[in-house]
């Protein structure tokens, strides 16, 4: 099996991430759902669970509007619909980080309707400062105790340190793949890289590490051909875990050189850890991630995009703006203001929930690529 087969497996997993788990011969393993990059996945891992990310399901009829009004984002609707249809039935529990107001409401609905055993971890909106860190450490300790009490598990320091090692290794390997991609953009496409990263949300992290190591040793794939025009773009936002869409964009002749996707590089940490205790380290890892829903002093969505755009010498930015997402849409208003001031070409499109690029979006993207 070469690197190409790993990529193929990644696409298979992310196409139907939860189906595989119910029919898995190892289903005696304990699965635990989590909703967002800010949830302390390492703690779930240390408790003996396999953390599985909740992306919802776009298959079948969406039943979320039984519980929530229509002016709610598709991310949440897909997730509620999956809960309603029992897609997450194999999970022992789920944990919600309150990444935004809508997520907070959704988690409450899941709890009230008893769709799952729900835990919360109240992630601060502000990502910087000693007060934030102190608060987050206390909140993580509260969450840890809650997890131990409700699910009859024990998370000691040694176990948590071991889990942290697994996740540090995972981060290191992903950065290595990313560096490889930057140097050999003809050997792995942007969409393939993102599929490789995203696969890790649905399989045990150790297994993901093994696959990444194998890929690094055997990086040959057939995805070359993307970026035939020599033009490079950054993609940002959220794409419903639909990497076929990204493949179609690259098929238009442009290479996705870097990303700021919710399913993608936002998950990676900067590696800044300041020790004291394993819980402090978990807090540091969380605070080093940036999502435009949050507030970080001295850094906002536009700054993140401009930095990536400059570092990658990209030609433009494609922003996937999720409809009904208050914080991202409001942040976009300020971002647009800055990007225009910097003369950075960008285009905003609404990510389709089902299927790939529609004719209209394709035309817009073609015009955009022409422009850059």
């Amino acid at each position, binding site marked *: 099996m070469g690197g190409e087969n790993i990529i193929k497996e990644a696409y298979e997993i992310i196409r139907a991430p939860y189906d595989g788990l119910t029919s898995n011969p190892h289903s005696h393993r304990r699965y635990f759902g989590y909703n967002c990059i800010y949830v302390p996945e390492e703690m779930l891992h240390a408790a003996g669970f396999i953390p599985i990310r909740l992306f919802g399901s776009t298959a079948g009829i969406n039943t979320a509007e*039984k*519980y*929530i*009004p229509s*002016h*709610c984002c598709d991310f949440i609707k897909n997730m509620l619909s999956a809960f309603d249809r029992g897609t997450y039935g194999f999970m022992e529990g789920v944990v919600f980080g*309150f990444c*935004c*107001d*809508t997520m*907070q*409401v*959704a988690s*409450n*609905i899941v*709890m*009230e*309707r008893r769709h799952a055993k729900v835990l*919360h971890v*109240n992630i*601060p*909106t*502000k990502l910087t*400062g000693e*007060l*934030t860190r*102190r*608060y987050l450490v*206390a*909140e993580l300790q*509260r969450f840890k105790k809650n997890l131990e009490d409700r699910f009859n598990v024990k998370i000691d320091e040694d176990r948590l340190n071991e889990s942290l090692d697994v996740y540090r290794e995972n981060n290191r390997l992903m950065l290595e793949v990313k560096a490889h991609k930057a140097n050999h953009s003809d050997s792995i496409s942007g969409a393939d890289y993102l599929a490789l990263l995203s696969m890790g949300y649905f399989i045990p992290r150790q297994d993901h590490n093994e696959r990444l190591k194998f890929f690094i040793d055997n990086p040959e794939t057939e995805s070359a051909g993307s970026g035939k025009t020599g033009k490079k773009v950054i993609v940002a936002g959220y794409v419903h875990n639909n990497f076929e869409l990204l493949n179609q964009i690259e098929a238009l002749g442009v290479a996705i050189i870097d990303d700021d996707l919710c399913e993608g590089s936002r998950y990676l940490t900067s590696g800044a850890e300041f020790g004291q205790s394993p819980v402090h380290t978990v807090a540091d890892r969380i605070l080093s991630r940036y999502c435009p*829903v949050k*507030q970080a002093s001295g850094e*906002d969505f536009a700054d993140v995009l401009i930095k990536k755009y400059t570092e990658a010498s990209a030609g433009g930015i494609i922003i996937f*703006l999720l*409809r*009904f997402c*208050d*914080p991202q*849409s*409001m*942040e*976009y*208003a*300020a971002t*647009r*203001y*800055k990007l225009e001031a910097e003369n950075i070409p960008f285009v*905003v499109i609404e990510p389709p929930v089902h299927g790939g690029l529609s004719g209209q979006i394709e035309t817009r993207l073609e015009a955009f690529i022409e422009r850059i």
Partner: protein
Amino acid sequence: MRNRKTKNIKKIPAAPLFMVNNIFTDYYRRLRSARKNNQRLAWTSIGFPKNLLYAMNIVPVYPQLHVGFQASRGLTGQIIEHVEGKYEIPHDLCGEIKSMIGTIINGDRLSFTLPEPHLLAASNCACSAQIKGFNFLHHYLKVPLFFSDYPCVSRDGTDPHVLAYVKGQLDEIVRSIETRFGARFDEQLYYRLTFNDFKAYTVWLEIMKLFRNKPVPADAIDLYLFLVPFFCMDSGRDAFPDLYIMLYNALYERCRNQGSPPKREIRLLWDALPVNHKNQFFKKTFSRYGAAVVMSTYFSDSPSSKTSRLKFTYPLTRAQVEDAVQNEPFEKIEPRINHISGSVNHRIIAHRKGTIKKIIETYDIDGVIMHLDRSCRVGCLPQYELTHFVETELKIPVLVFDSNSMDERYFAESQVLTRLEAFMERLRS
């Protein structure tokens, strides 16, 4: 039914209404003269403790309240349309924030101007959209933004680390403003203002009790106006708490003189914000059926909505109020702490269910109106869940209708009217 003569709308008595209007006029006058008087101005989001700023001689300006007034005059639709076009902000986002941005970027072409700020102070106490709105202003106006983060209250009671986090941030903000602007935080003034607020809150709770009366003394939709001073007014001024004392006495007088209750009064609970530009329409429609809004979930969840232990005698005087609150420990009323648990939107759905249940029982509610406000996502997304609870567990009819508190472009009067009429008929039968 539509041709039937409208019965008298139960208006708020004239004297307190006149007083609150004077207070606002005075407030706007002060805003305009603040710069001339070398006072600093802070544009502030809903939920940011005003007294911290007043205690540093900084005048807080609440653009969200300002645009609320604009909306009640039906002026925000055009402003929002302009912002949506210019900054590609989707139509489905909070109208309050969009109007706020529009008020600034339009200058005085579409709305009257607010004095420009020296700083911005915002919190996510009410929702996170307002933080992003203020972030936009921070970029646009190029003035410093001070932001305090309020974690969601996911259980009953607030954890000590949450309190420490919020209090620590606000203390940090005060220190930063002192350093950056050469301001001085007057602790004595802060205490005095906080106590004045508490006096007003105490009377407010007594006013709420008057709405248990049958017949109800006034349509409670008008009370939203009387909530506004709590957010923005300088409570060191004489009108605070006198405004609420006057309102209490006027409503008490009405309760006393109203005589026996009518055969059938339809008592409604209103959830979420009012439709600012259509208050009159709702009051008229309700009054045609002998119905009135007797309570709102917003009033009940105002920051100090604890059960009052105070006993007043009519007429209520300032001396009585002062006597009643003098022994209250400061920590209990400290806004840096109270605001955490104050916001409806920052509480879990179970808390909102508990609030609605309590109101329905205490105020003898016949029906619940859920305003599914497209301008307030966080407030309205739980409404299907709340509706399910009220209908199945409390067995009270609910009407959910779609509208927008800020944007008059999204109000279909005939559709809403038909649904209201059907609902009223159902309640009357």
